[in-house]
């Protein structure tokens, strides 16, 4: 006999013995389920299928609650949505695992690092490059110059050292060039839309790369004679040879992107002019203006600004640096300037930095390489005046000491009174920072700028105050890394593409992932256990040119891995990201109910070692949600009962009784538990 069931205000027919879920399912009403299994009795542990039933005091589980005549059910009330969201957040808070590997989560461009490292380990280099290029167009550039924040979070650090993520990327790039197996993405038929991109740096070219694939005609307008931006004019050849750069830029061109060189915004073209000729504009002018120290004597000969110096060297200008060069600053530009000076023939090269080594923002590898080449460092020293007649002769400096931490968390330097002293030098290069030159947009342009002299945008859409004008990269953030600029270029391309297609510019979602410890630091306690669990296998060293030889020229210092080194290093990856991340029900439901994977803080998660004793059946209790499907299937479908719940309360686990290995139970190796 049919009975009347009302769900979400609509009447349906049900039968005695059916559950709410049965009726809902038959009528296409979606109720999320986790612990429900078709052939096994309802369990009701996961609570995700909770619905409101008007006769019940509290919500009921749809998978088990029977329907009766006149039942009124609501599946999407605010209460239910709140409960489902919290339910998932509780499960996630107890899920000691990473959906997505920490390296991938750390990468500003979100590259699937675990994926390409795995492909490289198997020798599948073209596929590896293709995977990288889903997120960044320049594996060769990044493989050489990226500061690789991913490697700092690499969980292999707990065992020995990081996987050489950056060098692996470089190898993939190089070998595909060598073998002619580079990946060039297909380009969609022309959309008829045009985009002007100002600046042929990493942000601008990345934007073009992804827009071109969507069929939009991109024109990159570049002030300088060649493309590359900071990667060409800020990074010396010994770190990034021009031929590598040219090769990757050529790939951008091959997608039909047009480059207009020696064309300057504000002089040759204007924003309003571009707006008339193009459907959208992307401002990616970089940050090429040096910040001045503002000390007396800066007008003397032999005084240079770091970034200008590097650019002019690239442009072929000859310098007479003399014997002694002092570079002021602690960042990568300072290191690049000092190592370039060495290569231009200077005998004594110094870095002068007002804080100590620990506070230097430069990549420690760069600092190490510079030291190998004979650069000397003077810490806690700050120039106050440059002495000389026409050309500079000496730098008056003071000693500093570290005081209280400032807003950035670094201890700020304080002058030691009466500590003035002189440094004799022929050249001083000041590399204390850069900023964009935003004046190029013209005084009456509606694009707003910040007090840091950067373009102001809507951070979700990348739009400036003019809807069709977007901005990104150094010009929007201030000086940052190549990989961050590439990420900006790609994300801006996504939004520009939507804009050109007339779609809504919704925020670009972050990666949805639970995390096994928020940072490497938070996992420090695991170090001993991991050292024990994984055999130590130190990282392969990057073969380097001899320091004495390399300062004689601008030849690339790092020689690259051999394939053997590469395969071995890629094999060291611990594969933190989950095998099931693409088809995980938990993750899908979590997303669907709007649960925040790391919303609930926990202290002292329960951690379990994976049980690998059985020849075929592996169990990772860290990911178990105690739905009991395996226990129930083994018991109810096969009447074996090899699995059971052990202990109670928060520490409940699924195991065979008395902690014996599964193969020592009545397990028939049928795999039903795994399937369920």
């Amino acid at each position: 006999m049919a009975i009347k069931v009302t769900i979400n205000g609509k009447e349906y027919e049900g039968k005695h013995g059916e559950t709410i879920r049965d009726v809902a399912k038959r009528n296409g009403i979606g109720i999320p389920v986790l612990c429900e299994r078709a052939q096994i009795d309802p369990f009701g542990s996961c609570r995700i299928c909770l619905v409101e039933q008007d006769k019940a005091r509290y919500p009921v589980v749809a998978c088990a609650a029977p329907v009766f005549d006149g039942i009124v059910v609501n599946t999407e009330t605010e209460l239910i949505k709140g409960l489902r969201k919290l339910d998932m957040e509780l499960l996630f808070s107890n899920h000691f695992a990473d959906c997505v590997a920490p390296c991938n989560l750390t990468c500003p461009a979100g590259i699937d690092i675990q994926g390409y490292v795995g492909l490289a380990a198997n020798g599948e280099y073209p596929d590896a490059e293709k995977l990288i290029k889903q997120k960044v167009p320049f594996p060769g550039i990044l493989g050489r110059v990226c500061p690789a924040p991913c490697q700092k979070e690499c969980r292999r650090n707990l065992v020995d050292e990081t996987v050489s993520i950056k060098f692996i990327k470089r190898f993939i790039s190089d070998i595909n060039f060598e073998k002619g197996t580079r990946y060039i993405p297909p380009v969609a038929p022309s959309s008829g839309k045009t985009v002007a991109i100002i600046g042929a740096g990493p942000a601008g070219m990345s934007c073009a790369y992804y827009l071109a694939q969507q069929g939009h005609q991109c024109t990159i307008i570049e002030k300088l004679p060649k493309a590359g931006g900071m990667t060409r004019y800020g990074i010396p050849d010994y770190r990034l040879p021009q031929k590598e750069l040219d090769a990757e830029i050529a790939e951008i061109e091959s997608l039909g992107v047009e480059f207009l060189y020696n064309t300057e915004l504000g002089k040759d073209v204007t924003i309003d002019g571009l707006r008339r000729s193009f459907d959208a504009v992307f401002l990616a002018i970089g940050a090429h203006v040096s910040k001045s120290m503002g000390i007396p004597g800066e007008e003397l000969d032999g005084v240079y600004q770091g970034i200008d110096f590097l650019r002019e060297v690239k442009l072929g200008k000859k310098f007479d640096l003399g014997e002694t060069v002092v570079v002021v600053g602690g960042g990568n530009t300072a290191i690049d300037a000092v190592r370039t000076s060495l290569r231009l023939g200077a005998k004594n090269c110094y870095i002068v930095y007002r804080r100590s080594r620990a506070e230097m923002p430069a990549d420690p590898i760069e600092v190490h390489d510079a030291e190998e080449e004979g650069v000397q460092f003077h810490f806690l020293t700050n120039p106050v005046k440059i002495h000389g007649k026409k050309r500079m002769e000496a730098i008056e400096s003071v000693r500093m000491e570290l005081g209280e931490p400032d807003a950035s968390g670094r201890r700020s330097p304080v002058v030691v009174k009466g500590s003035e002293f002189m440094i004799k030098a022929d050249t001083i290069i000041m590399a204390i920072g850069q900023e964009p030159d935003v004046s190029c947009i013209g005084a009456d342009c509606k694009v707003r700028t910040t007090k840091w002299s950067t373009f102001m945008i809507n951070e979700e859409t990348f739009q400036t105050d003019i809807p069709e004008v977007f901005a990104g990269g150094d010009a929007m953030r201030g000086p940052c890394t190549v990989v961050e600029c590439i990420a900006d270029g790609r994300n801006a391309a996504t939004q520009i593409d939507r804009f050109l297609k007339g779609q809504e510019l919704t925020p670009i979602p972050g990666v949805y992932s639970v995390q096994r410890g928020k940072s490497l630091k938070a996992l420090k306690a695991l170090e001993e256990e991991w050292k024990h669990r994984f055999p130590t296998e130190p990282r392969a060293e990057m073969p380097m040119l001899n320091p004495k030889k390399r300062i004689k020229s601008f030849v690339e210092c790092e020689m690259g891995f051999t394939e053997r080194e590469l395969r071995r290093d890629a094999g060291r990856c611990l594969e933190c990201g989950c095998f099931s991340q693409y088809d995980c029900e938990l993750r899908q439901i979590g997303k669907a109910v709007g649960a925040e994977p790391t919303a609930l803080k926990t202290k002292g998660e329960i951690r379990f070692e994976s049980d690998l004793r059985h020849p075929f059946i592996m169990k990772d209790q860290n990911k178990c949600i105690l739905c009991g499907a395996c226990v129930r299937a083994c018991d109810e479908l096969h009447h074996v009962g090899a699995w059971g719940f052990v202990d109670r309360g928060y520490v409940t686990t699924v195991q065979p009784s008395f902690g014996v290995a599964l193969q020592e139970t009545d397990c028939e190796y049928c795999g039903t538990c795994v399937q369920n």
Partner: protein
Amino acid sequence: MKTLRVGYNSCGIAAGAEETLNKLHALLDGNSNFEIKKTGCNGMCYLEPIVDVIENGKIYTYGGLTSDKVEKFIESLEKGKHIDDWIILHPDHSTAQLSYQEKQVKLATKNIGVIDPENIDDYIAAAGYQALEKVLKTMNRQQVIDQVRASGLRGRGGAGFSCGMKWQFAKDAPGEEKYMICNGDEGDPGAFMDRSTLEGDPHGVIEGMTIGAYAVGAQVGFFYVRAEYPLAVKRLRLAIKQAEAKGYSGKNILGTGFNFSLHVIEGAGAFVCGEETALIASIEGKRGMPRTRPPFPATHGIWGKPTNNNNVETYANIPYIIREGGAAFSKYGTDMSKGTKVFALAGKIKRGGMIEVPMGITINEIVNDIGGGIINDGKCKAVQMGGPSGGCIPAHLHDTPIDYEKIMATGAIVGSGGMVFMDQGTCMVDIARYFLSFTVEESCGKCTFCRVGTKRMLEILERITAGEGTEEDIPLLQKLCDSIIKGSLCGLGQTAPNPVLTTLRYFRDEYEAHIREKKCPAKKCKALITYRVVADKCTGCTLCARTCPVGAASGERKQVHQIDDLKCTRCGFCKDACKFDAIVVE
């Protein structure tokens, strides 16, 4: 001829009743002037060992009669004299302890502390099994249920569901094979009513349950008793054997053709097995884990058969109701809560023990009149009723009459009868943390909200008591409480947040003091207090330095001492040791 009746429940034995009894036997065996008997606990646990002297129909109750006093006691009795100072209840005049008994009405517990629980004849002499006989020989099944419904008896396990209705459901459930369960899986911290009842009057419970079995049509009954109650299990098994021998249990009871066999199942100590579906699973030999309801046990209980489940105290009330009629029972109590209720008094109360009081009595009457107030003449701050499922009722609401609905309105529940009293030195955040830690361990681990939710709540409470709480913690606690109540599978989870909710409701200022000022107003939370020596008061006696187990207190003789805050573990030994009140907690 004098009868000496020794209180011989677990509480008495713990206080030394065994030694007292042995001494009595050593002195009196073979002495025809004395008869020695064992009985249960009269409820005055705080004065055990207790020995009643019965002579000429008068009962003189001696308290605190440890074995070292026995010789003098017997010497005096042999001279025909009593030692008045040791008598706590006197047949001829009032005593200071009389107020403990005066306001009590004993219906369910009337035999406890009176009869010998190991002797069925004692029970029969006290009108035992009369009710069963009346039922089997003069009443039909519906009449029994009608009497119970008329009494207004509600389930004493905590939820307070009408006992008569429950029986009716089980009676009306289709099927020939039916079961009875007596839930003796008492697990609330501070509760010991079921233990004392099963130890002191097992036949009373057997009789009540057998009457229920007749009413619902059950053939088999299970006592589910925690294995931690060995004496209760032992006496229950003995009582069943004796009842079977006398024809009150087993096959063809009292020759009426009614069969009802009883079994004792020992629970392994999981709190959740007090939940009926978990209890049933446990009886069936499965993991004690609740399942979703419906179907309810009344139709799908043990092995899928109709099953009726009541608490020990509920059954213990039945013989009285049948003997005297439902109306006699319902003349006690309030409109909605009839009869009496047994409570276990524990915590910072002067007189800890078991009492049976009419429903409607106020908490104040229990604390002050029966319980004699708070220890050290302190002020009562709150009472926790209903164990981990209940809540803390603050002192200003202690004029609330005890009644299922009125107690529920405060946020607590009557529960099974545990009352834990707290004085001003109790930190309410710490209490909430304690009860949560209990639930986190005792959750069966099945459903997400209870298993993980309570743990997350506990972590927040631990943060707060450690002085690491933040402003967001209180709203987050509220959200978790609300969701765990509404989202959990069984009663354990649905009530687990109650201690937190009630303390948040009545003692929010204490939470805020921990979070905002990093202060524990009750000076209890170790992370938030320091011990300091008051220089003016310190005489340099060195006692604190000698007492301190970690060497934090130090100083030269006759010099003012110091406490090293970094070494100090806040154990408080120094403060307790100091004779000059020279150590303060700040």
